[in-house]
């Protein structure tokens, strides 16, 4: 009788988790769409538009980056946008988990993100956007999950690559695209920054899932071989900086409401030298 009660309670817990807006239990067994599918749909989306080039009149620019906003609510998001606009950034990267996967979250995002105008913004997909069949909404409201853009100063041009690691893997097609992009285009650019939602190295105890080791080694090789200057990630919710070879790996604090340490990253480039600092939203 006791065992039966425990089993019933366990099943009720699973159902309630599924019913809440945060946990997608089905995804623990199989994703709604594969990373290769998402990559192909992203590339079809990209075909209609040229990669964006942001023109900057001097050899100096700033990129703001935030991650793990988890809209829902947008108190921190709104504060961050106000601060970003007041500090005259040249671009904003939204590094995944911007929304929680529900259609209402994406609709809320679509309304609030307009406050960023006229600063160009570049979203990436995180794991939470894929919950509850969220990929279709992501494609509709945020666009492609794999693309690149550049920032052109009066002196040089820097390459910014946005990757989809929402499922913990680049997948075979995106990896081939990434390798080819680095091989054919990297040398034409001065600096190269890669954005990925999923952080790569496990520097602190966490329950977050990260890429498989063999894929991690492949990415480590690519970053070194093609001199990627900076890799910026989210997912872990806690700030971390580690340097491996010539690549700085930065993991961001979460921007979600209720998170005490919410801040955003300020990447600045002055005369070709990349620097970073974290800016509080308070």
């Amino acid at each position, binding site marked *: 009788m006791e065992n039966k009660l425990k089993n019933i309670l366990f099943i009720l817990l699973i159902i309630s988790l599924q019913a809440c807006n945060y946990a997608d239990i089905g995804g623990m067994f199989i994703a709604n769409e594969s990373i290769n599918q998402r990559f192909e749909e992203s590339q079809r989306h990209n075909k209609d538009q040229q990669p964006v080039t942001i023109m900057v009149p001097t050899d100096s620019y700033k990129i703001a980056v935030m991650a793990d906003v988890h809209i829902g609510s947008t108190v921190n998001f709104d504060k961050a946008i106000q601060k970003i606009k007041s500090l005259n950034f040249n671009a904003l990267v939204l590094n995944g988990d911007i929304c929680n996967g529900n259609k209402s979250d994406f609709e809320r995002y679509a309304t609030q993100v307009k406050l960023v105008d006229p600063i160009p913004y570049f979203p990436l997909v995180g794991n939470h956007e894929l919950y509850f069949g969220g990929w279709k909404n992501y494609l509709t409201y945020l666009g492609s999950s794999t693309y690149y853009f550049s920032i052109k100063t009066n002196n040089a041009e820097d390459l910014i690559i946005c990757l989809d690691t929402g499922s913990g*893997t680049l997948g075979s097609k995106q990896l081939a695209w990434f390798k080819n992009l680095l091989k054919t285009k990297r040398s034409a650019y001065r600096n190269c920054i890669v954005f990925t939602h999923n952080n790569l190295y496990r520097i602190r105890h966490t329950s977050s899932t990260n890429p498989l080791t063999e894929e991690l080694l492949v990415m480590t090789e690519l970053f070194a071989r093609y001199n990627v200057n900076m890799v910026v990630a989210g997912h872990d919710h806690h700030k971390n900086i580690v340097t491996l070879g010539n690549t700085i790996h930065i993991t961001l604090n979460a921007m979600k409401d209720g998170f005490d340490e919410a801040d955003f990253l300020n990447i600045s480039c002055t005369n070709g030298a990349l620097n970073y600092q974290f800016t509080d939203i308070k």
Partner: protein
Amino acid sequence: MGANYHFKIKTYPLQGELFFLQNVLNNYVTERNYIGSISTNAQKLNATLGLGFKTIGFTSYARKQAGINTNKSISEIFNLIYDINYSFLNPESAWKLKIGISNIDEFTVNQATNPMTFVSARYNLSDKLELVTDVCYKTAGAFNLHVNYYGFYIRPGIIWKIN
């Protein structure tokens, strides 16, 4: 490279193991794993629990090619190592068949949140030689990441035990 030691706690048989694994990718990236674990030694259901420590770095060739003079490697935080498996056949039989879930095998050490599912068939040729065929299914993503198929391998081989 590994070494193990069989012991008992009261009458319960256990096996302690120290294991070192180095992988080199394309003569560029080196991964080193240092693992200590304890396994049960029961007839049917067995479990291994341990801690692993991983460093990722660059070979001297890579450092020369990429101009890397500092920050040649990083170390990840201690990683939980586990293996839970069930053996189907009679333990006295020369044949062994088991199914299990683990984040480690002889050539791979994954983070704790990346388990692999495996089926392992083994045949004892002698006290020192064992024929092995392992089939392993890997997924990317687990727990808070949607699961994607990643790959599988079929690995035949021979294990030579040095006693």
